[in-house]
């Protein structure tokens, strides 16, 4: 373990890395402060120095503040939430020893030394007690509000209750110490500051005692509430079980309860309708109401649609019909293969059905317009009945 040479060295070391230490202290509960992250805040050499002097401890890829420094900062900033009664206990032991030495010591300056110790510790006891009491109350509230697991919640509250008893005992012991047990010491040590400190301590102890009574009430109250909740949950489970087994009505008094229960809630939503007063209807004020009611009625009528008649059976019968289409593509292909003249070709073409002369003319025109590029259209014309047509051959 690194031992610092002087206060000067400690203060300087901390001052060199104050940004980093502040950041690490803030994140002390997260437990994952990465080495690389520290390098962003401080240069490597300084970080190395801090590690050597054990202000910061490296744990794999993570860094953490050394326990001694952490305790020191928490103590000064009163940021520790732990309730520790051991330190008060130790202090009481220590103070009794110091008082004993004081009484046995003849040398005045040494006597004063012991007296100074006693004063310092009395002050300390007061502060620690108050902090413990505040932390206890905060822990109780937090546990009740935030702990989701019922069993842990009950165990935590019971532990906090035993802590409360410990603190109470220490308050009583301290009180006993300054009032009765060491009466001779306080009679002999007539120091103005000491009596002021004792007075202050008594006040602090009294306040703490009162606060503890409240904590005790809270704990009892919270434990009762939890117990009721647990019982309720249990009850719901049982009732639900019987409901699932269809046995609820025969094995419980639900029927009786519901027969007696007459709340309107059980009726569901009921709407009462009243007739309008005839006097009101005869007055002018009623006009708007009547118009409104009338428009509602009209809307209703509009919405009503006449019912459609029955569909006749014959419409539902399936019927087939065949239709023969003229396949122009096929005609074109046979024409190109034939080497004939188009007009004559179409006139003599064997269609799958009867095709009239006019239709054949239409087919001729369709062919020319569709496959113009594939035909050799000449500037010579033929004549058929009253029709003049261009002579067309395949290319």
């Amino acid at each position, binding site marked *: 373990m690194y031992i610092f040479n002087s206060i000067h060295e400690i203060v300087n070391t901390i001052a060199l890395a104050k940004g980093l230490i502040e950041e690490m202290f803030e994140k002390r509960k997260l437990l994952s402060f990465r080495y690389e992250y520290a390098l962003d805040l401080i240069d490597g050499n300084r970080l190395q120095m801090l590690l050597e002097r054990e202000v910061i401890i490296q744990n794999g890829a993570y860094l953490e503040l050394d326990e001694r420094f952490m305790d020191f900062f928490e103590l000064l900033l009163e940021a520790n939430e732990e309730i520790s009664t051991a330190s008060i206990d130790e202090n009481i032991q220590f103070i009794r020893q110091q008082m004993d030495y004081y009484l046995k010591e003849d040398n005045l300056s040494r006597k004063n030394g012991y007296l100074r110790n006693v004063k310092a510790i009395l002050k300390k006891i007061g502060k620690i007690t108050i902090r413990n009491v505040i932390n206890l109350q905060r822990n109780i509230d937090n546990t009740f509000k935030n702990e989701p697991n019922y069993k842990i919640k009950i165990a935590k509250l019971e532990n906090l209750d035993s802590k409360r008893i410990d603190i109470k005992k220490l308050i009583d012991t301290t009180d006993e110490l300054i009032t009765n047990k060491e009466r001779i010491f306080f009679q002999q040590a007539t120091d103005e500051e000491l009596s002021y400190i004792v007075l202050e301590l008594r006040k602090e102890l009294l306040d703490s005692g009162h606060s503890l009574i409240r904590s005790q009430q809270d704990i009892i109250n919270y434990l009762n509430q939890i117990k009721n909740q647990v019982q309720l949950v249990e009850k719901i489970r049982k009732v639900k079980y019987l409901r699932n087994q269809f046995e609820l009505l025969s094995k419980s008094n639900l029927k009786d309860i519901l027969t007696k229960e007459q709340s309107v809630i059980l*009726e569901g939503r009921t709407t009462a309708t009243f007739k309008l007063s005839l006097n009101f209807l005869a007055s002018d004020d009623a006009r708007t109401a009547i118009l409104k009611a009338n428009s509602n009625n009209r809307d209703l009528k509009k919405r009503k649609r006449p019912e459609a008649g029955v569909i006749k059976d014959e419409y539902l019968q399936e019927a087939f019909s065949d239709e023969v289409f003229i396949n122009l593509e096929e005609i074109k292909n046979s024409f190109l293969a034939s080497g004939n003249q188009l007009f004559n070709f179409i006139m003599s073409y064997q269609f799958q059905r009867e095709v009239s002369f006019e239709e054949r003319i239409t087919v001729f025109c369709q062919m020319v317009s569709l496959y113009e590029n594939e035909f050799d259209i000449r500037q010579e014309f033929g004549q058929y009945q009253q029709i003049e047509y261009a002579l067309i051959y395949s290319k």
Partner: protein
Amino acid sequence: MELPKNTADIFEYLQKGLFISSNSTNEEIRKMYYTIEEYYELLNDYFTHINFCLEQGNEYYYFSRKEPKATLEQKINRAYWWIDILDFFKTYNESFGAGYRFSPADILVQSNMNMELQIKLDGLKKHSAGKEKRKEILDSIIDRLIKESFIENENEINNTYKVMTAWNYLEQLIESINITDETENEISQ
């Protein structure tokens, strides 16, 4: 003594079979609650004349009447629905009760991880008129609980709901059910 100004509002609200809860997010309802608290005797006396009894619960008020219109069967069906609901929400979180805040999204996430909750949510299908998807079932349950004034939508943006003190009525109803001793033993086994 004169009746408070919002007597008509109170009547209108309560006769629909709704609760007036002290922790409502609606200011009007809170105002009604405090009016009833202040003029309880007077209002109760007044409503008694028209056969309604103003009942006082733990932080909530509701109406009852001597000759209720519901049949025993209707009452039992309604009680069954409440038992299913209580069981479901207590499975979701044991501290679910008056003042509790929740979001349906969280319940759905939980139901994906917690088999028991999932089965219970599926079991509530019978109360949600043919809804199939879990989200739809949950939404329809929540809708119904809002209509029955047991919960309120506190924040429409994050879709969070607050449980009204009227929830105590349901818990009290369950607490008042006595199960025969032998059955108790049977269930615990």
